[in-house]
Structure formats: structure tokens, C-alpha cells
């Protein structure tokens, strides 16, 4: 499925609106009932430049707007063809291949409900799932796990500090690449015993950490695989985190919802084109898709990976070869359970008068609609739970139907 004109793009979203009523019905068994679904959320911290990750090469206003960093449909500054109108950044061949296999899609001109330009408040809204910043210390993915039942569906936070999206009432596993011999079981038991008497909160966290480590070793993760290969802003680090998460998610009794955070997307300066800073990071993200596909094996069929960011960047390139904080951006979905091979966008265009506040890609799709659509179709969460527990005060934002296949 491929829509080249904004008229038909609009139809995709209208379709979502029409299905609002249908969303109250129980989710079809084929999607949620018999399948052992996995959801992986990748937070891209720093505000991904959506117009560079998925350039609208077919939009006549794009080349002048984005000069001198504009991509062309082919050639030296060529991007990877998706539907002819939108393309993928040249450093994302895996994503483009999956698109061809109808196993990836992108949603463009998307944004959270946040309209200011602070990274930290933006990430708070993105991860908490609340309409504004500073409302809670828990994340939407954690609350979704809690709503489904933490016994049925365990969560996993990757990284030494768990991303907010996975923090909250439902206890979640934690894992990070490291390079240190494990303390002995006897010591662990003694410390757990001390915590049971003096500090139950620390005890609970330590117990979960120890459990995850056991699961990782049992499922064949070697010390070599656990050794750090670079930070979460490096392609090696991103790949490794994804490979580790894949191994845990693939286990029969492993977690089913995971959160990772990749860093370094704040490209104010020298963003680069087909090569450079952003290209390097996108190749890491693309490598993460590849590792997840490989590591999940047969479970990839029932997996959705969604990569989200707090907001986009200015439509025009700034005075220092980068872009400043903006609004509308792109969300990438990949995985065997994605009804892919299409771009979902109510494309606003990038004519100067169409830009949000004269500077940013105008947001036309609420990110919560995408995430609610995935959660509804993958796990059968009701619109009521989604609108009250997972994304509070979002009743007006209908889940986007048809993302899961």
C-alpha cells in the first residue's frame, strides 16, 4: 500500500477516525488472542530530525527548504526509496528492506501533545504518557504492562538507569551490557536477607536485577556478549543493547515489553547528510532493528518495534549546519507483526506558510494514537483503559487502527 498524494494520505487517518467505534469491540483473536506478542519501545533522546530520517523527496518544496542538506530520490545524495514520495535515510537499509517486505512502516508529521521545546519536558511527556510534563514518576509502557497483568506480561528496561517509560507500579526486569564478574550467590543471598529486614525497596530492586542476570546467563548470553561496546549514542552500543534485549525477549518465560533509550539525536550543529553525525546514529538504530530481527528468531513474527522521539527539529537548516528544536517528526515501526509497507501521514507539506509557527514541520498525527493503536491490537487493551490508565486524559485521541497485521 502506498499513497503518493496528501489526499489519500488523509484517507488513512480518516480511516482511523471511522474505526473509532469499532475500537470498543474486543480485539480480534488473530491479533491478540493466540499470539505471544512482543513490544519494544526505543526512545530516541535529543529530538530526531524527522525530515532527515524520512525525507519527503517527492514534496516540491522540500529541496529548497532543506538546502544544503536535502536528499534526492537517487544519486549521490540519494535516499532509499519507500513509496516514491517519502524515502528513508541512506543509512537505514534494513528498515527499507523490511518496508519492501511489508514489515515496517513510518508515521510522519507526528508529535506528542507537548508544544514547547524543552528536551527534558518533551521526554517526560513522551515517556510518562501524560498530556503535560511533571505529572508522574511512571511511564506509559509500565502502566500498560500493569493493566495487562504483570504476571502475564513482564517488562524489561535496558540500561543502567531504566528509561522513565518503563518505570512505575509494575516491577520490571533490568539489564545492561557490562563487564564485571558477578558477585557470588552467597553474598547476594546475605545482602537480600539484610534488605528484607532493613530496606525492602532496595531488596526488591536487587532481587529483580539478580533474576534477570540469571535468565540472561541461562539463555546463553556469554560474558563476551555482555561486555560494553560503546555508549548508547554509538552504533556498537545500540546494536549490543538490542541484541541483549532480543535474547531476553525470545525466552519462553522472558519479558514481553521492553524499553531502550538511544542517545545523541540533538543535532544542532554539523548534522551531516548521507554521512556524518546523524547518519552514524541512524545506522545504529538500523543495526538495532537487524539485531532484534536476528535475535528474536521465530518470535520476530509477533514483534513490533517502535522508535519514538520527544519532538522534531526546525524544518530549515540553521546557521551551523544543523537544526534547532522543532515539533513534528517521524515515528518508525518495524517487526513481523507490523502491517507495513506504507507511510501513514496526513502530510501538511513544507511550504513556509504551512510550517508550525513558521519554523517546524506541522504535527498532524498525535503519537498517542499510534501507540494506543499498537497496544489495542497487540494486547487487546480497551480504549477505556488506554484513555484512563495508559495515556490519561486522552479520550479524544482515537487509537489508530490497522497497524498490526
Amino acid at each position, binding site marked *: 500500500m502506498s499513497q503518493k498524494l496528501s489526499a489519500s494520505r488523509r484517507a488513512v487517518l480518516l480511516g482511523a477516525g471511522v474505526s473509532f467505534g469499532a475500537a470498543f469491540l474486543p480485539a480480534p483473536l488473530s491479533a491478540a488472542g493466540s499470539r505471544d506478542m512482543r513490544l519494544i519501545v526505543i526512545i530516541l*533522546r*535529543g529530538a530526531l530530525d524527522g525530515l532527515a530520517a524520512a525525507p519527503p523527496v517527492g514534496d516540491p518544496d522540500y529541496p529548497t527548504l532543506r538546502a*544544503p542538506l536535502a536528499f534526492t530520490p537517487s544519486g549521490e545524495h540519494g535516499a532509499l526509496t519507500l513509496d516514491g514520495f517519502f524515502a528513508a535515510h541512506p543509512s537505514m537499509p534494513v528498515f527499507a528492506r523490511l518496508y519492501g517486505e511489508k514489515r515496517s512502516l513510518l508515521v510522519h508529521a507526528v508529535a506528542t501533545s507537548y508544544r514547547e*521545546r*524543552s*528536551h*527534558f*519536558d518533551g521526554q517526560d511527556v513522551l515517556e510518562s504518557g501524560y498530556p503535560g510534563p511533571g505529572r508522574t*514518576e511512571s511511564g506509559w509502557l509500565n502502566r500498560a504492562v500493569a493493566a495487562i497483568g504483570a504476571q502475564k506480561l513482564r517488562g524489561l*528496561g535496558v*540500561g*543502567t*538507569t*531504566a528509561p522513565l517509560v518503563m*518505570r512505575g507500579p509494575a516491577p*520490571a*526486569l*533490568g*539489564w*545492561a551490557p*557490562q*563487564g*564485571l*564478574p*558477578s*558477585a557470588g550467590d*552467597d*553474598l*547476594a543471598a*546475605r*545482602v537480600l536477607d*539484610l534488605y528484607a*529486614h*532493613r*530496606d525492602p*525497596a*532496595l531488596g526488591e*530492586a*536487587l*532481587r*529483580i*536485577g*539478580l533474576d*534477570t542476570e540469571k535468565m540472561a546467563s541461562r539463555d546463553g548470553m556469554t560474558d563476551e556478549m555482555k561486555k*560494553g561496546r560503546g*555508549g*548508547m*549514542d554509538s552504533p556498537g552500543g545500540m546494536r549490543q543493547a538490542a541484541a541483549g534485549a532480543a535474547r531476553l525477549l525470545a525466552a519462553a518465560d522472558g519479558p514481553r515489553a521492553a524499553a531502550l533509550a538511544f*542517545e545523541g539525536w*540533538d543535532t*544542532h*550543529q554539523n548534522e551531516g547528510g548521507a554521512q556524518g553525525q546523524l547518519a552514524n546514529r541512524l545506522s545504529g538504530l538500523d543495526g538495532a532493528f537487524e539485531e532484534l530481527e536476528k535475535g528474536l528468531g521465530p518470535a520476530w513474527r509477533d514483534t513490533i518495534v517502535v522508535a519514538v522521539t520527544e519532538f522534531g527539529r526546525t524544518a530549515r537548516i*540553521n*546557521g*551551523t*549546519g*544543523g537544526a*534547532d*528544536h522543532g515539533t513534528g517528526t517521524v515515528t518508525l515501526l518495524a517487526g513481523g507483526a507490523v502491517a507495513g509497507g506504507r507511510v501513514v501521514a496526513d502530510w501538511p507539506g513544507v511550504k513556509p506558510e504551512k510550517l508550525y*509557527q513558521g519554523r517546524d514541520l506541522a504535527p498532524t498525527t498525535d503519537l498517542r494514537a499510534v501507540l494506543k493503536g499498537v497496544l489495542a491490537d497487540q494486547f487487546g487493551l480497551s480504549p477505556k483503559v488506554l484513555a484512563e490508565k495508559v495515556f490519561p486524559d486522552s479520550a479524544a485521541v482515537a487509537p489508530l487502527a490497522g497497524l498490526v497485521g
Partner: protein
Amino acid sequence: MAIGPDPKGAVRALNRFGLGARPGDLMLASQDPRGFVLDELMKTDSALLPAGDLPTTPLALQQVYLDNQQKKMERERATAAPPTEAAPAAVTPDGKPAAQPKPEPSPEQKIFQAEALARFKKQLAAGCGISERLVAFWSNHFAVSVSKSGHLRVAAGPMEREAIRPRARAKFYDLLRAVETHPAMILFLDNQRSVGPNAPAGRFAGRGLNENLAREILELHTLGVDGGYTQTDVTEFAKVITGWSVAEPESEIGQPGGFVFKANWHEPGPRVILGKAYPQQGKDQGEAVLLDLSRGTATAKHLAFKLARHFVADNPPPALVELLTRRFIDTEGDIGEVMRALVLDDRAWAPEATKLRSPLELVVASARAIGFSPPEPGPFLHPLNLLGQPLWQPNGPNGFPDVTAAWASPEAMKMRLDLSAQFAGRAHDEPLAVLETVAGPTASHETRQAIERAESKKQALAILFMSPEFQRR
């Protein structure tokens, strides 16, 4: 061990406000815990770190410039004249390839390591450690990251040493001005090439405004995100600080690697920020804005809350925050006076120890407890990396988190256990004596018993480092 009248207060003084007890510190602090903290805080030079052999910022950056230039020349030579034949590999008499000489560490690595070592040594030698805690607080408030570039790797340490330490408890304006004009901050937040659109240099194609530094000054360094500024204020402030830059190697003005104001990059004309007009010219305009920002009510609230959250509790008593805010406003941002008010207030001492020590606090406190002082910084840098708080390397300009939830994740607690086991292997101390050093009579019965019943000294020390008494402050 004989101990003074207030052992609980002594533990609070050293853990909540300082860097943890060394042998004998509890006894010193227990006579008058508040006095113990304040004496160090108010001592003129307690936050200073003598430069010794450490290069100044411009000299450090010049070494990187030179190193980059040499590497570039080598690359060019290599492409111009490719070697005709590879030299035969050196072998030892028994036919094995000779060990390659270890490559000389880059100037970036050398300077970073030297700065790190000097900082750790200072932290180990501190009495209470309140001044070092305050320095680290400001370094995190004005966060820069060494992962950005080689330039940042050499300039982050000097920024703390030259800009922050001499002003850690000065007027906030002095600190703010010193940091925002330090090359590390300018480079980290991309202001060095930000050019006013109507400045003489702005007419060249491909040059223009970059609003990164302006935004983070307003959002993170002064007013706070709810401080009442708009996108227009950000853009106008970015214009105000155009020209605040760093002198490049071939610069005709300024010292290479030092701060420089490039007048012909500066957006000319008066500006309005937060409703107030700034008619000044040149660099004075930016300083005038910084002065007003540094004394703003929103700034006072923002900093009072951050200080209380850092030292006292994740959710500090609102009345205490209010008191500190008022003190900040009444003294036109005198940090020393705000800190004095904090240390003298009962509410800062009352809450139980609920905050988890940050990785930095934990690693330094462990070393202080057993008198561990390595000749190189690796034994500190490595655990900080593993625990998610690499030195001068936060994920973004908002610095590292300052709440327990962020540090007490399952993965991090498992890592704390592994590190405690490893670190316990370094010590030969009597575990119960170390418990006496760090907790005195305040240690719980259960902790004491777990240590006494451990199967080895090493295990006993690991349990001690993992005990709530040691992990929380």
C-alpha cells in the same frame, strides 16, 4: 571508640552534606555537626584545586589543535607518498613478533586523566566534603559532556577548576557569567559559530543563528522550564549572545582556545528579553541579561528546589525550599548565604536517610572509608561508567538525575553488588572497624550481625558497602 554527644548528627553531616567518613571523622563531627559542615563551607579556599601541572583551558585546547594538525599532516603525507613496500615486521630472537610499543596516549586522554585524578584526590582529602559536594552539584547543574569532542574532553575539567571552584559559593551571577563564557560551555552548546543575521559576518552564506546555548541558559541554568519565557525570548537571547565564541588556532583576536567576543558576529541593535529592553552594545548586552536572569525570582525558586532536592530529599519540605528561595532573593543570589541557611535549618537534618547515594558519592565514600588512594583515576572512572554516572559525561545538558528512583533500578543495584564484591577485595581492614568508621553507634543490629556472620572478611566488607547505612544518606 569515644564519640561526641551527637553521633546521628555526625553521620548526617558526613553523609548528607559531605562525602562520607574517613577513620576518625565521625568523632570530629559529633561535637557540633552543623559547625563541622559550616566551618569547611565558609573556609575561603576549601573548594579550590591548585592547578599544579594542569594546563589552563587555552593551553589544553591548543594541545588538541596541535595534535589534530599533526594527524592531518600525517594523513596527507601518507596519501601523497604511499609506502612502496611494507617494512618487515619486527621479531624477537625466538621468532615471535615483537610487542608493539604502547602508543603514546593522546593529549586529550592525558589531560582528562590528570584532571580526573586531581579531582578524586581532592575529594579523598576533604574533611567533611561539603565544598566538593557543592562543586559537583554545580558541575552537574552546568553540565557539559566530554563525549561531544576532543575539545570537550580537555576543557570539562578546567571549566570546573577555573570557572566553578572559585565561585562555588559566590554570588550566583559571578558563577553564571564565568560558566557561560567558558570555552567548554560555549563549545558544548554550539555557540562558537552562532552569527547574528544582520551582523557584518552574517551576510556570508551558510552562517546564522544557533539557539542551543540561549535556550539551555534559560531553561536549565537560570529560570527553569516554567520560568515564563517564550520561543521569542529564546531567539532574541540567542541574538544577544552572538559573538560569544572561542578563539580558533589562527584567530587574530584573543588567545587561541580562550573565550573571545567576536564583535563582527554580534547581532547589532537593542533587544527585548522577558519584556525588558537591553540597549547595550556588544558583550555588555549579554552580561546585562545574565545579571537580571541570575537574580530572577524564577531562578531563585529553581535553584532553591534543586539544592534542597540534592542535599535533603527527593521531595524536600516545601517550607525549606521557600526559606532558601527567600534567602536567595534577599541576598541577590549569594550562594554561600543560601547554603548557610540550609545547613542551619532543622528541616534539612530531620528526614531519615532515604536518598540513595549517587554513584559518585558511593565510589568516593567507599574509598574514604578504607583509605584507598590509587595513583591513577581508573579505579574510580571504571565503576562510575558501570553505574551510569561517567565523569563529566551526562547524556545531555540537563546533567545526571538527582532522585533515588533513577539510581535504584534493578540493573544498577545488581551492579552495586558486583562492584562492592570487587572493591571489598582491595581492602584489608577489619570489617567491624570500618563499620565503626562510617556508622559508629548508629549502625543497625541487623547490619552488624550480617557483617559478624559473614564467611570471610571480604564478604563482610561487601555486605557493609551494600548495607542501607552505606547506600543511603
